[in-house]
């Protein structure tokens, strides 16, 4: 079932001297429970698309159709935890803003924290946590308001490589277990291939969709395992050529 339909999205930025066409034409549909990754050269407007989809930015033209009031959750670059709030309170920020601090929702947050290894850290402050744990808290904060679709904007780019692998595995499992659909923007091709069901490759600015790959891996399981699949290198090669990096 398709829950999100984007048609001919176009976005122009205006500055005093220039008019920059960031996104020329972007159309795609998101299926229920699907994990889609968007990759492309830097500055191609990947993040712009996400901010438009979750309503932080307005498109110049084009339409976005959403199935019966599905809710969005947005996870940005870096964890953006509030240092003056405990982990538990950090997770509640979304519910506080939406005035939904009901017993049911609080129980859900507690359940998430307990399930994903943060039980003993509820009263701790963010600076006592490792980068990976902080990222998990950031995901739980997003999940707390029970969104149907998650938008992940380079969520792991602030982490070092080891942590990054572990955390992307973590986050993937959580998203799948909670049965969420997700759209992730990243510049890391292997991350995209190992996590996504579909990878959308964007062209340089003014960007359009250059190619869409259905990722079919033998023995598909978690992102770290997926990296070992024999098709992995092929996809990597194709996407690399599509993006056509010039140094």
């Amino acid at each position, binding site marked *: 079932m398709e829950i999100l339909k984007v048609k001919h999205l176009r976005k122009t930025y205006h500055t005093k001297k220039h008019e920059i066409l960031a996104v020329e034409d972007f159309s795609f549909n998101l299926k229920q429970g699907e994990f889609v990754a968007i990759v492309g050269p830097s500055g191609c407007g990947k993040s712009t698309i996400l*901010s438009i989809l*979750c*309503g*932080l930015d307005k498109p110049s033209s084009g339409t976005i159709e959403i199935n019966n009031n599905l809710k*969005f*959750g*947005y996870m*940005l*670059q*870096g964890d*953006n935890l*509030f*240092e*003056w709030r405990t982990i538990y309170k950090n997770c509640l*920020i*979304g519910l*506080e*803003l*939406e005035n939904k601090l009901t017993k049911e929702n609080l129980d859900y947050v507690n359940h998430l924290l307990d399930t994903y290894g943060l039980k003993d850290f509820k009263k701790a402050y963010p600076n006592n946590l490792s980068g990976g744990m902080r990222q998990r808290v950031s995901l739980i904060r997003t999940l707390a*308001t029970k969104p149907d679709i998650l938008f992940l904007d380079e969520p792991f780019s602030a982490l070092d490589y080891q942590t990054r692998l572990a955390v992307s595995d973590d986050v993937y499992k959580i998203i799948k277990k909670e049965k969420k659909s997700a759209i992730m923007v990243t510049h890391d091709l292997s991350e995209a291939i190992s996590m996504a069901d579909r990878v959308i490759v964007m062209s340089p600015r003014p960007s359009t969709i250059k190619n869409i790959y259905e990722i079919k891996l033998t023995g598909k399981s978690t992102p770290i395992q997926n990296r070992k699949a024999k098709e992995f290198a092929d996809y990597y090669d194709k996407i690399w050529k599509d993006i056509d990096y010039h140094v």
Partner: protein
Amino acid sequence: MYSEEHQKYLKKIKINKFFIRFTQLLIVFLILFLWQFAANHNLINTFISSSPKAIINTIIELYKNETLFHHIWITFYEVIISFLIATIGGIIIATILWRFKFISKVIDPYLTILNSLPKVSLGPIIIILAGASTKAIIIMALFISIIITIINVQQAFTSTDENKIRLLKSFKAKPHQIFFKLILPSNYNNLINVCKVNIGLIFIGVIMGEFLVSKAGVGYLIMYGSQVFNLNLVMTGIILLCIMASLLYYLIVFVEKRLQK
């Protein structure tokens, strides 16, 4: 239980801290001693430079004719009132400027001009408008501190992490929610620093005001002392100000620590 090495380390820190305090006190006593010594042996002219003993005597005298605490209270009262109005008012105005970018842009050049204007030059106008009263002194102090408060607080508010604002907006946060959940708590340290700077500026304003119009207060003591060439009184006033300013400063530090718990 700590290891022996760690205990040594802790002891070293303690000793170091003690020596810093000790040296600080030593400097005060040394200065007082040398000053008194020089005064006793006529190495300095006590008529101009006064002496610790004379200052203490002046304080006792003021205390005996029941004016000491009156003067301190007047100055203290003026400082506290101006401090509260300047800090709270400054933060409120800065909040409005943070919320409404249009007003902020319109008002920007006026703020800059007012900030660079030597506020003492407004003294005569303030006296004419407000009358030669405590009111004029408080207005003087406000002029000196509120502009810089507004500029500093607004600067701090607008440099709040943009990503955190986006995060709150993705939860559909309204401006007042962004302000109370993010802007205010994330700028806690900046606000405390503004308070610390303000105490100093307010003292400048109040003493300046007292020089111009007052009938009582520590600034009045200093002014009166210099006019009748009683340098003991002038020095006493300065010492009293030192004590009051540091007390207020530590009061803020105390409040800061209490709030952090």
